[in-house]
């Protein structure tokens, strides 16, 4: 699905992304994790041809992404609010996106019915422009617009960050369903290790622009990742928690 060859991006002498060789197969569900500044969003942007790599290239279904238009037909993505047209109402925006993929308004309406639970009555016909919605609800619009496009490749950058627990739960189900039933290749980044290990079958850990771990999710994955991010404090952490309980 996605093939990365010798990809490199340097800002002011600092290498933010450096991925020598890498492949994502069709139907995989990828979780991208890493601390702030690890290069996750930059990698996303290069896969989406929004940033020009200093070296190397990204191939999507065997075709070079840069300058191409073909990948746009089957790729849906939501990285941040910059992806939404904020002076439109959510309905107008969704009709617009649907229209780009040749869907009539009735078809869009029909599809949106399947998202009723996800939108939770906060999006459609609320009499608000997208810019007046909260960040969490904007995220719902963005994800909804992605699903509407019935993509082969779905890319979400920290979708869990702003949404409420119920929506997080629903989104996880949607992602699993899209991947299992529709065979959609998903790439999701998150800072929440629980979510990522729950949804994704393959975890990529980035540090300083490099992919330093590439693991298939198993029962021990979460502990392994917690150890990495806890910078060796995982054990003492639990005892500390215990102490605090005792002091109460």
């Amino acid at each position: 699905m996605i093939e990365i060859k010798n990809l490199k991006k340097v800002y002011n002498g600092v290498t933010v992304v450096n991925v020598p060789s890498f492949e994502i197969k069709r139907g995989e569900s990828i979780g991208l994790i890493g601390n702030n500044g690890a290069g996750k969003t930059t990698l996303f942007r290069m896969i989406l041809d929004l940033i020009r790599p200093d070296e190397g290239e990204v191939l999507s279904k065997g075709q070079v992404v840069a300058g191409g238009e073909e990948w746009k037909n089957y790729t849906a993505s939501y990285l941040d609010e910059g992806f939404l047209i904020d002076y439109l109402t959510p309905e107008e925006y969704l009709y617009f996106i649907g229209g780009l993929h040749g869907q009539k308004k009735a078809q869009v309406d029909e599809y949106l019915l399947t998202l009723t639970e996800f939108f939770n009555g906060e999006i459609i016909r609320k009499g608000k422009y997208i810019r007046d919605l909260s960040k969490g609800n904007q995220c719902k619009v963005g994800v909804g617009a992605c699903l509407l496009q019935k993509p082969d490749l779905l890319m979400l950058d920290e979708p869990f960050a702003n949404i409420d627990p119920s929506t997080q739960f629903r989104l996880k189900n949607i992602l699993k369903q899209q991947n299992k039933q529709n065979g959609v290749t998903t790439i999701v980044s998150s800072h929440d290790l629980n979510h990522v290990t729950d949804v994704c079958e393959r975890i990529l850990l980035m540090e300083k622009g490099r992919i330093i771990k590439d693991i298939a999710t198993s029962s021990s994955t979460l502990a392994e990742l917690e150890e990495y991010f806890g910078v060796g404090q995982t054990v003492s952490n639990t005892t500390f928690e215990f102490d605090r309980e005792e002091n109460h």
Partner: protein
Amino acid sequence: MFSLFFTHELKSFWRSANTGKTLAIKIVMGILILILFMYVLALGLFLDRILEKAQPNENLTVAFCGILLIYYLYDILLRLQLQELPTLKVQPYLHLPVKRNTVVGYLAFTALFSFFNLWPIVLFVPFILKIILPASGALAVVTFIIAIIALALLNNYLALYIKRKANLNGFVLLIAGGLLALISAGDFVWHLFSLSKISYLFFGNLIKMPALVLLPLILAVVMYYINFAYLKSNLYLEELTTRKNEHKSSTEFPVLDRFGRVGDLVANEIKLILRNKRPRSALTMGLLFMFYGLIFYTNPAMPKGFNIFVGMFMTGIFIINYGQFMFSWQGAHFDGIMVSKVKFADFLKAKYMLFTIVSTVAFLLTVPYAYFGWKIVMIHFIMYIWNIGVNTTVVLFFANRNYKRIDLSKGASFNWEGVGATQLLLSFPLMLMPYLVYWPFIAFGLQNTAYVVLASIGILFIATRNFWIGKLTADFETKKYKIAEGFRNK
């Protein structure tokens, strides 16, 4: 605390993205302000002579006292339109242990730093020193100056108060405007009362009774406290910002549906223009320009060659005014457009279509200028063709070189965001090209040929649009990363 606030304010000015980056703009702006200042100063210095010319039968002091109140009436009107509310800047302090009185006091205090408060002093003090000092003595001068400053402050806080009220309810502004219109109509149209007499009643007596100076002073202080109290009781973010909670409905343009994806893009852009403050004022500016012709066509002394410019501006002001900031208008969601299934050629076609629609409407609106002869309408038509042929392409060529983001929600007046060298460069071809085509023929007395050539070039560009779209797309491909990155920089 005030001094700390003040240093923050200075930092925010110097470090803000749109003031800090381009020194050239700062210099140009500084020069413009200086020129304006010189004009007002000159007006103030020669005010006695001007009044003498305008009202030769009146005593100078009487005439002067008569215009003061009228000045302040229009001052309010100007302030309502142009003076900016010092509001959102307090947001970072509201949750900190800073006393509310300090924050509100600071807000009220910074409101003093407005050019509007400087004008009356520059304008009237020279006259007071020249005429009133020798005639009525030093005490009269002091009371006059105090009265003038006090009235300026009264206006200052009154205008801010009205504007703050208007933020919560738009009708307040309408009522205030209507009231001002009624007052001026009452004097100048219906002659019910005379503003200059009322003005003289106060200022004339001020010379005799210096104690009267207390009146404007008290009014100013009262207004200050009304403003202060209002701000203090409404120091909540949702009330300070201009966001209104009215129901927003979806709109459709069925006509545009027929044009498929390009039509959708045009519909989006029309919504962009109508739903955001700054592009909306670009459109209103265009409507005001419809009266541009009245200035020129009623004046027989204007050289004929000017007509092509008048025609170009009237039918194409939107292309120039709105187009100069392309694609910055869409900067906030440019990433979204880039990854969505929008072909750049379609994106450009939508721009051409939008320009064509607006220019066509503008041309139709200028048809009544037929009153000045059908030839003028013909010139308008030729320049309309030129606009949708040549100028659209020129504007889009420069749009590929524009990397500055624009925040749509901010107003247009004194807003320099998104302004850069591109806009300056753009104005040269727009202004010069029609003249370069027109002038050589005129030099040989071939006026009609000049028109024919202008129209032919316009038609040629329209006929070859797809060629230009191809060129522009290829050009865009080389610059898109830079444009997208520029738009991401807030």
